[in-house]
């Protein structure tokens, strides 16, 4: 509130804030929030499953992304609403933790809220609904654990891992080469995996992409790829048995952090300075040469003089190597990142069997490949494809496949896919609902209905009659007591997902249920939305 005076000195009150605020309360707020979540779900649900469709996303700058990855779609959408933002966070949460199932988690959360709206209309208090969902989620998770199975694999026999990765890749545009991409992903993960500790450091798998060629040319490189070229055009393009000096210091005279001033007031001093400068360059190159290195990777640039000295000393070098790549290279080659020339010695050099510069296409576009690294701890997946959008989508798909494989190495429990676990859980939850005498019974039953949304979407996207398919499946699951029956998306003639070899990780599924339930609860509990409009 502001008091102002007009030209005659009379006071008046300006109430600015009211104008800037918009407020929704109680049922209205809830309704609005739920509506938003449901509309997001409706966008995403057509992307579910092997027959799901893609979205074109146009960024504010007119850039185009084509994808069916839930997290990517949400990330690239122009989101302004807070509830939308929450759902984007939800999808990202799933992406960070599990890496796959980012679409399903949003669809499920949307379905939960859609069901909640019906209950709210009946006059059930949102807190009771939230409690019911919580309870139902527990039942569902317990049930999931019950119907999960274990898979076995080791470094030689990893067919099961490939199958799991294939399920993850099958819904993407790259599914023509799903077998090949899955194999690549699994091999990459196994190379860097520590099977005893059941740990995988995903950041050791580099996924690099270049347009051109076909997806079929995508390959696993046992080593590292840097998108750079040798600093001097006439340097050797190929080094065998490379001993690599990995430098994080520039090839230039030292630049002390403390401010200083060097005053030159005589010719002698000028000449001395000149000699000093020359000496710096020579010393640096000499130190590198003396350490026995035959390849220099530098995080910084170096000027023409240093460049030529390196060339003259037969030290092929690469400048402006990125920090992440430096670390990867250090890990893979067993070298150390050296911050000072004086600390360089033979022990700190990285070893790689073969390093070469490879030209691509007709436009002087080169990459440097480091192969046969001594430690074998890092690998690179080099993705090719006909256009930028395909390459990007392939990278995302590979990321998903890598995550699935990692999750299986951490925890080898799986559930069968195709909506089978959701149907089975739905049955279990609605059965449990009958035994509960309080109001929550309704909420629990709604939870079961929400679970059906995923198989329904799968069936819809595959061109099947959703209601008929789901009711058949439910009946069959009860009749045969087989929790592996799911939607036959590809028309293979069997509903048994075990036979179709479609499976998801247990950890991923549990995470989906937990995250979506939490999100639904959170949105339900909001009864007041106060919007502050910005200045404009």
């Amino acid at each position, binding site marked *: 509130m502001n008091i102002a005076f007009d030209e005659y000195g009379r006071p008046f009150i300006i109430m600015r804030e009211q104008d800037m605020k918009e407020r929704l309360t109680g049922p209205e707020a809830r309704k609005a929030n739920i509506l938003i979540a449901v509309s997001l779900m409706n966008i995403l649900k057509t992307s579910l499953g092997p027959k799901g469709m893609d979205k074109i996303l146009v960024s504010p700058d007119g850039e185009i992304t084509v994808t069916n990855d839930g997290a990517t779609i949400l990330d690239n959408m122009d989101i302004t609403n807070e509830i939308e933002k929450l759902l984007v966070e939800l999808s990202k949460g799933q992406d960070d933790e599990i890496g796959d199932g980012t679409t399903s988690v949003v669809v499920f959360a949307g379905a939960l809220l859609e069901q909640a709206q019906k209950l709210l209309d009946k006059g059930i208090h949102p807190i009771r609904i939230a409690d019911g969902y919580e309870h139902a989620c527990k039942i569902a998770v317990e049930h999931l654990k019950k119907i999960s199975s274990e898979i076995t694999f080791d470094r030689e026999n990893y067919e099961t891992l490939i199958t799991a990765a294939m399920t993850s890749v099958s819904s993407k545009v790259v599914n023509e080469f799903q077998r090949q991409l899955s194999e690549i992903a699994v091999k990459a993960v196994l190379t860097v995996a520590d099977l005893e500790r059941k740990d995988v450091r995903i950041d050791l798998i580099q996924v690099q992409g270049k347009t051109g060629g076909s997806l079929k040319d995508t390959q696993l490189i046992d080593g590292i790829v840097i998108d750079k070229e040798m600093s001097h055009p006439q340097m050797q393009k190929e080094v065998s048995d490379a001993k690599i000096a990995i430098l994080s210091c520039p090839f230039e005279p030292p630049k002390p952090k403390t401010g200083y001033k*060097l005053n030159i007031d005589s010719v002698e001093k000028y000449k001395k300075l000149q000699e000093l400068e020359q000496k710096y360059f020579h010393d640096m190159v000499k130190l590198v040469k003396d350490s026995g290195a035959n390849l220099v990777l530098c995080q910084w640039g170096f000027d023409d003089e240093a460049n030529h000295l390196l060339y003259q000393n037969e030290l092929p070098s690469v400048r402006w190597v990125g920090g992440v790549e430096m670390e990867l290279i250090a890990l893979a080659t067993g070298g150390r990142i050296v911050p000072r020339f004086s600390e360089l010695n033979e022990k700190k050099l990285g070893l790689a069997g073969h390093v070469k510069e490879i030209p691509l296409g007709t436009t002087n576009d080169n990459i440097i490949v480091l192969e046969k690294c001594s430690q074998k701890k890092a690998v690179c997946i080099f993705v090719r494809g006909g256009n930028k959008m395909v390459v990007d989508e392939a990278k995302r798909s590979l990321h998903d496949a890598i995550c699935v494989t990692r999750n299986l190495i951490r925890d080898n429990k799986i559930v069968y896919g195709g909506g089978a676990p959701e149907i089975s859980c739905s049955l279990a939850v609605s059965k449990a609902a009958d035994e509960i005498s309080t109001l929550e019974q309704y909420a629990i039953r709604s939870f079961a209905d929400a679970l059906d949304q995923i198989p329904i979407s799968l069936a819809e996207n595959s061109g099947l009659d959703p209601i008929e398919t789901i009711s058949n499946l439910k009946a069959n699951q009860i009749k045969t007591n087989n929790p592996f029956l799911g939607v036959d998306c590809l028309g293979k003639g069997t509903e048994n997902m075990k036979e179709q070899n479609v499976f998801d990780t247990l950890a991923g599924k549990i995470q989906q249920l937990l995250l979506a339930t939490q999100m639904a609860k959170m949105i339900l509990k909001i009864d007041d939305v106060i919007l502050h409009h910005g200045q404009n």
Partner: protein
Amino acid sequence: MNLDQEKDKEARISSFVGAIALSELVSPTLGPKGMDKILQSMSNNNEISVTNDGATILKSIHMSNPAAKILIEISKVQDDQVGDGTTSVVVLAGELLREAKRLIELKIHPQIIISGFRKAKAVALKALEKASVDKSKDKEAFRKELLKLAGTTLSSKILKTEKDKFSEIAVDAVLRLKGSTNLESIQILKKKGGSLKDSYIEEGFILDKKIGVGQPKRLENAKIMVANTPMDTDKIKIFGTTVKVDSSAKVAEIEKAERDKMINKCKKIVAHGINCFINRQLIYNLPEQYFTDNGVLSIEHADFSGIERLALVTGAEIVSTFDNPEKVKLGTAKLIEEIMIGEDKLIRISGCPDPAACTIVLRGSSGHILDEAERSLHDALAVLSQVQIETRTVYGGGCIEVLMAKDVEEEAKKVSGKESLAVEAFANALRQIPKILCDNAGFDSNQIVAQLKAEHYKGNVNAGVDMNLGCIGDMQQLGVVESYKVKYHALLSATEAAEMILRVDNIIKSQPRRK
């Protein structure tokens, strides 16, 4: 929610319309009788270019339709990867989508069309591979094949009047690269004046620079140093230095020291025993004068790619420090001289022992012609350089498309279910290429394509469209050859893009960024 959304049918229609419009935009430029486009810059109305190169047209137009953007992207990738076929890739993708649109109107789901297209693509690629021939073993035959290849590429461009001449030029230039695909080493020098006929490939190398003042304009048995070093003010690269003096006499001293430093550098350079010094950076008067006095010819400010090419031509290394003369590899040339092309003075370096780079001098009556000639020549060079790696070739003139269409059609008969419609549609799309070729030339396309189809079913695998006579001809005899890699890449990218666009059921647009 302030999302600009297009859903399902709407999204699909918008994609199809965009893609087909784009392909219709470029399809009249396809083939030897294709027409050119004038591109006018939006910011500068005087800036126009005349071209029939697909990639150039597409790069210049502004499109907001997402599907059209995908097609522009594949055209760019085609240009980067193989250099030619930038129009055909877009036309093919457009035709595939046109067929797909027809199928969707028949209520066939996009996913089914996609799986049909994939089957068809596999068959088409197999047919393409089967039809390809590799003539790289016999050097003489390979050269002939390269000439034909260059001829085919050039025939659709402005250079077609001098097709044979430019084919020779392109093949010679590429063979000099010795298998390298770095087209940077071929310098294309455009000089207004004369006619296209006067263009030639220079035996030696031409540098568009001037020889230093007062230095000889002709130098025999040159020993060349190619350098990249500051010859203007050579700063000492230690940070935080300032010069502080207390009398003007000392200023003079310091200045002298500075001069001495430069002279010293020059001395070191001359001590390499050279008589020609070429620098990437500027050479100031002082060092230039020193070089003149010592009988060294100096050339300043040769840009970076020029320096790299020079290094390739003369076999010199690019030098930046001068303390170890014994380690420096110098370049040699029999003759360096100043020549005149038209009005301009240039430097010719000839008689190099083993040049791996060369210069093509293009002459023409106007800047637009020269620009278009350069683009055309670049396409031919790119194709030829890629053929050095992937040596297989196929027959052009619509021959290979009809051949693939035939195999795909055979496959369609074997596929059961709705997919077979999509496979058939793929064959139709392939046959659109010769149809467009004919249309552009003003021939009776329906008649000729039908005849062509019949010829291929009769087993005449070399049959294609004779673009001069407007009838069916034997492509082997006519020497219409195209690179296998270009066709392979075009087919692959076009199908990939079509698939990608087909899979979309929702276009979500963000608000354009406020400017």
